[in-house]
């Protein structure tokens, strides 16, 4: 990781010096070592502020949409983050040619809040970025026989009533701070449906049904787009395991539409696409 930090500093410095990039999205020091922060660099001299350690879990694709179109941006991405960049390119939110993607193959990240390891149970198991221009370390062997969806087995096996019990207990804690959607690299809507008054899709006050309405609709909006980075769940102050639901929707989308989100810039997200031969069985 020290090596990655070094490479990241070098590349950031170079890209800003040569003006190949106007902005570099990387990681910086927070109030201590174990609490880094997203770092948005514009000056080559600031490259020294870059840090990289196992707590740099931020998906920097989240900040890509904050800049005016045409800004040349270098963005440091880990495995899942690169898929978010891919989706943003697919959806025309950023242009491929405006990006310099600094790929970080890395394993063994940790949640800075709980200190626990981040693994395939809370995010995708992949360790290498799918899309990059510059690789900051050698590609790692991808873990074998690990499915991002193994963790779902227990909940899938529940009866509907038990599953309802599980989720309503989880969502009952939701305080509607919207950290989940704000941490999500793909929830880039300036005005979220839930904040609208006409119509009022969901009540603003938290309640079992209004919380459910918000989250289910948000899961739908991320269907076929969520790249399983786990940012939403890590951002949630109330520890709601949103990643489980996102994983389930992704799994279903992959099974039904034979395409995983954010793997290829030329693909269309599955929910704005169709195949004539899609089976009616998916509705059963």
């Amino acid at each position, binding site marked *: 990781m020290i090596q990655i930090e070094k490479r990241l500093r070098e590349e950031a410095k170079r890209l800003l010096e040569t003006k190949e990039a106007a902005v570099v999205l990387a990681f910086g020091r927070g109030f201590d070592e174990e609490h880094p922060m997203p770092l948005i660099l514009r000056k080559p001299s600031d490259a020294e502020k870059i840090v990289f350690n196992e707590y740099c879990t931020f998906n920097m694709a989240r900040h890509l949409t904050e800049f005016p179109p045409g800004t040349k941006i270098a963005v440091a991405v880990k495995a899942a983050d690169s898929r978010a960049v891919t989706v943003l390119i697919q959806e025309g939110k950023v242009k491929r040619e405006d990006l310099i993607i600094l790929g970080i193959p890395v394993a063994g990240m940790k949640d800075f809040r709980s200190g626990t390891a981040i693994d395939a149970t809370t995010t995708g198991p992949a360790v290498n970025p799918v899309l990059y221009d510059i690789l900051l370390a050698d590609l790692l062997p991808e873990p074998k026989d690990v499915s991002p969806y193994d963790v779902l087995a227990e909940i899938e096996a529940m009866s509907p009533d038990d599953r309802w019990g599980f989720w309503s207990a989880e969502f009952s804690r939701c305080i509607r701070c919207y950290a989940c959607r704000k941490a999500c690299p793909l929830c880039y*809507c300036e005005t979220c449906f839930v904040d609208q008054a006409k119509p009022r899709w969901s009540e603003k006050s938290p309640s079992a049904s209004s919380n459910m309405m918000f989250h289910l609709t948000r899961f739908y909006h991320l269907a076929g787009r969520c790249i399983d980075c786990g940012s939403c769940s890590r951002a949630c102050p109330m520890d709601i395991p949103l990643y489980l639901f996102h994983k389930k929707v992704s799994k279903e989308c992959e099974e039904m539409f034979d395409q995983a989100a954010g793997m290829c810039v030329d693909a269309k997200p599955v929910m704005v696409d169709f195949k004539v031969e899609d089976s009616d069985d998916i509705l059963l």
Partner: protein
Amino acid sequence: MSRIGVFVCHCGLNIARTVRVDEVVEFARKLPGVVLAEDYKFVCSTPGQELIQESIEKHRLDRVIVAACSPLMHEKTFRKVIEKSGLNQYMLTIVNIREQCSWVIEDEDKATEKAKAMVNGAVYRARLLAPLAARFIDVNHDALVVGAGITGIQAALELANAGRKVYLVEKGSTIGGHMAQFDKTFPTLDCSACILTPKMDAVLQHPNIELLTYSEVSEVQGFVGNFNVKVRQKARYVDHEKCNGCMACMEKCPGKASSEFDELLSTRKAIYIPFPQAVPQKPIIDRESCTYFLKGKCRLCEKICQQGAIDYEQQDSEISLQVGAIILATGYDLMNTEALKQFGYGSYPGVYHALEIERLFNSTGPTDGKAVMRDGREPASIAILHCIGSRDKNYNEYCSRVCCMYALKFAHLFKEKTSADVYQLYIDMRCFGKNYEEFYHRLLEEDVKFIRGKAARVTDRALSPEEEGKLIVEVEDTLSNKFMRLPVDMVVLAPAMQARRGVEDLSRIFNVSLDKNRFFIERHPKLDPLATHTDGVFIAGACQGPKDIPDCVAQAIGAAAEAITIIGKDKLELEAATAFVNQQICCGCQNCVQVCPYDAPGYLADKGASEINEALCKGCGLCAASCPTGAITARHFANDQFMAELEGLMQY
């Protein structure tokens, strides 16, 4: 708060029998925003309409709800009614308490309860309705007619005579369709060619008709008043601009093939016109049977043609047309009788289908009009089998409508041309048209034998000496309840009229739905039989369902009149219920751009938001449901309106 008027229709007893109308009125009267609720026997009647108009004025209504029949029935009627009173027509909501309620629910309590819930939904929705501005577009005054059988020909002539430019597209190399194959027509026994060929000629000569034979429509874009049509003209290998129709090529051509026009009972050349009176009177080369195309040498026709019209290199070409209205007259196919093994068509030479008989009788046909069989014999006994594939749950449940009559015609002609015994094996004689019953009675006099029973099987397996060498038709005579074996020389099948093969493509291209029998669906079976759900596209003739020539012609004229009501105008009012983008909340995800089948939304990079071209928008709402922020409003089906309706529907 809005000022809603609710009008509940009894529809005579149609609604009032199961829905307690007074109770619904009482319920509606108490809903927030409703200032008036009334019932009336027939709200759609003139006094009913006047009641609405008077109430709008008297009670200063700003929204009107009519609880009556389906909106597909009278929405337009009532929109006009309220518009006359100065309300925007989109301030109307129809509640379908007939088709959705009184006609399908037996229990009075349940029906009334449902009617109330539906009215409540409408009130919730109505409160949020907004007036929509009418949109007008310029109309292209030309028309397209697809299919040049008798229906298409008639429609094209009507339009052309009304001064409209008509493009008449025909798949085959000649116009005329099935009617050109017929010998005589029932019940008058006119010679089919004698009445058809003048019309064919008129088409050819008409300055307003552009005839496109050997062509098919491949794509239709646009909308009522402004269709953009692509037509693919197949390669004929004969340049019709140069060809003078001398037919010298045909004489010398060594290539031969079975004549489709004669139902394969005769042969034609590889360069050919289908029949002597074909229009246009210019040949085409059939690649499949042409020696040059098959073997690479010959080119006899090229040598003979003094016009230099032969062009072996000719390619399919594409023509683009702009029209304001379209009439589909694509006709029917005769059911393939080979599939019905029990009747022996294809196995026994003595079994014929109806179109083969037409050609046999015709003086230009394969037998020069002699009623002889494939072996040259004149049949001594003939059985005509009705309802082959029609009125049969295994094949087509419907009645093909023309078979009884042409079967009678065949019997008459057989009697005229031979001395054979003629048997009619029928389920019911359906002779509903003008002078049809009389024709039937005439045939009864002509010593034709009628057996009331559907033939079960045709076999050559003789059970008795007198059956040897004969075809035996097995039938149960339902009048005598006797099982019969009827030995005959010749069997004539009257197969079902079916929807065209490939009609699914037409359905897609023209955006016209098919019914379960694959015939085109009309907008309303009684009151709008020629329109389709796609504005500006009309249907006429047998593509809508089996019918005889007079009906086809009548529909052709009707469809032409309908088309003229569109293309006769300079401007057309379009559906105002289109979608628009609130760019302030658009997140620029471009989902709408991705999904729209009409390319109506576009992305404005400088604004980071989408915009919808409302001229292209058809109002389906696909984009609105794709929009994560709710920035797209599908007018008249807006998110808030629809969600309110749900709330209303679910309240009680």
